[in-house]
């Protein structure tokens, strides 16, 4: 019996563990390290209509128990992703969640329409929350009306279920979640990074060339857990939780708070084998918790 499988709109997951978008490229590098078919799914790097070269360097900085990044959605563009990256990934038995980004509604719609036709793309992750792109990007993620409309338009063209990735940089995360649910989202992924900054010690100038960067890693986990917990109570669509996952207990925590699956971002850099390790460690953890199937712990924080 598989104690770890999870069914979500469009996604038949062998297990609830997947690398988070932007932290795993298009899988090629990690494929040198382990068999990608082991993963529950792969969230590939944000794809935009045109290739993007991203922000100037330095693009990353370490912070206490976390890191800042301002990659700037560097990616080879829709054409190349469709022609090279996705077909290459077909050799693995793993569903792909395509992270869709853009600066205008038209951009998002175009990427969604095309990329959702790739045979191994089983779901889209609408990235309305990247804090590192200057135009548009962030407003989609902080205004519920704009977000809802975008989701409606993307849903109208996508061949596969659409998950919307929420930004934590808002006063009211529940309002955002409800807006995208009304817009027709099939699921929610959360959280993206928090906007942060680090200064150069000598000059006092921002260390990241883009001035601000997105904060991720264990430092943000308490915020992510809180948001998943709040959103779970108020929406009926499933949540893929992320933000600081660094050990198997964190997976349990996110699922307890209400996530149906869990993505791992930053920690892939610290321990490149973390995803398969977590998958291997889960059954013993279930035993410890006296649980037969991992589904049983989804949302247990909320049970009386």
């Amino acid at each position, binding site marked *: 019996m598989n104690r770890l499988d999870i069914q979500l709109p469009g996604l038949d997951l062998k297990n609830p563990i997947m690398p988070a978008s932007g*932290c795993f490229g298009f899988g090629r*590098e990690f494929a040198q390290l382990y068999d990608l078919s082991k993963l529950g799914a792969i969230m590939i790097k944000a794809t935009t209509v045109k290739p993007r070269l991203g922000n100037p360097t330095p693009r990353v900085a*370490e912070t206490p128990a976390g*890191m800042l*990044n301002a990659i700037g959605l560097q990616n080879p563009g829709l054409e190349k992703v469709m022609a090279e990256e996705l077909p290459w990934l077909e050799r693995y038995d793993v569903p792909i969640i395509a992270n869709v980004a853009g600066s205008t509604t038209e951009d998002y719609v175009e990427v969604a329409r095309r990329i959702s036709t790739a045979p191994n793309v089983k779901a889209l992750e609408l990235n309305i929350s990247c804090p590192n792109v200057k135009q548009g990007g962030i407003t989609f993620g902080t205004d519920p009306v704009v977000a809802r409309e975008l989701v409606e338009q993307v849903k109208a063209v996508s061949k596969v279920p659409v998950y919307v990735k929420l930004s934590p940089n808002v006063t009211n995360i529940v309002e955002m979640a409800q807006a995208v649910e009304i817009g027709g989202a099939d699921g929610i992924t959360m959280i993206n990074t928090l906007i942060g900054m680090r200064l150069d010690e000598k000059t006092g100038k921002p260390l990241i060339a883009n001035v601000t960067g997105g904060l991720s890693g264990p430092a943000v986990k308490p915020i992510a857990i809180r948001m998943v917990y709040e959103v779970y109570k108020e929406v009926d669509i499933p949540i893929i939780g992320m933000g600081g996952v660094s050990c198997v207990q964190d997976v349990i925590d996110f699922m307890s708070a209400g996530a149906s699956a869990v993505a791992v971002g930053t920690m*892939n*850099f*610290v321990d490149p084998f973390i995803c398969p390790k977590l998958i291997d460690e889960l059954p013993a953890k279930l035993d410890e918790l006296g649980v037969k199937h991992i589904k049983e712990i989804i949302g247990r924080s909320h049970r009386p």
Partner: protein
Amino acid sequence: MIQQERMTVVRQREIAKNIFEMTLQGQIVQEMTPGQFVHIRVSNLLDPLLRRPISIASIQKDSNEFTVIYRVQGRGTNVLSQKQIGDEVDVLGPLGNGFPVDAVQEGQTALLVGGGIGVPPLYELSKQLNDRGVRTIHVFGFQTEEACFYEEEFTKLGETYYVTNDGSKGFKGFVTDLLNELKPDFDVFYSCGPLPMLRALSSMYENKKGYLSLEERMGCGIGACFACICRTEEGQEKDYVKICSDGPVFEKGVVKI
């Protein structure tokens, strides 16, 4: 192949002011070539979080050992410097593409130019070049005498010149000042150090074949996160390279520096 290994500290000592030499033992040594680097996790806890990229300074395949030389700069290298013999260190490596030792032939001469903490990877390179019958000239720049290391080791391998900014050891000034005086005769140069030095060398030896080792802040160290991008010069196949996986060593003229 890139591997993650808990390697054992077999030696650690301060060889110059705030400069440590640490030798680690483990299987992945067998895969190492000069100019490659390892990515070290200094603590199993969550602070400091990220791995630190450190160049491979020398390789002892017979004993499964390799050596790094690093400067204690911030929190991570400080933690590293406190490791004791017998402690385990989480190493990811070997990473990247190192110096092409076969770019210079037996009997030819290679000029190795290093600045500060860019000197270490040139040591294993020099050893391997000498093993191949290549003559090596070493020109190294440091801030002050206190920061200098490995003079004896390099001297054994070939002509060696130290340059310090304040003149406290060897020639006073920058390595390029000395090179202007020295006008060494060589076939290929290899270099690692601060960008201004690499830039100066590239224009100084415009017509020579040369290899530069670059640095950038890293996330993954394996090519997945796009943290360590560098734009390429016009006419290259790609617009950019990743320093961690395409480099850190590039032929002169490939990347915009």
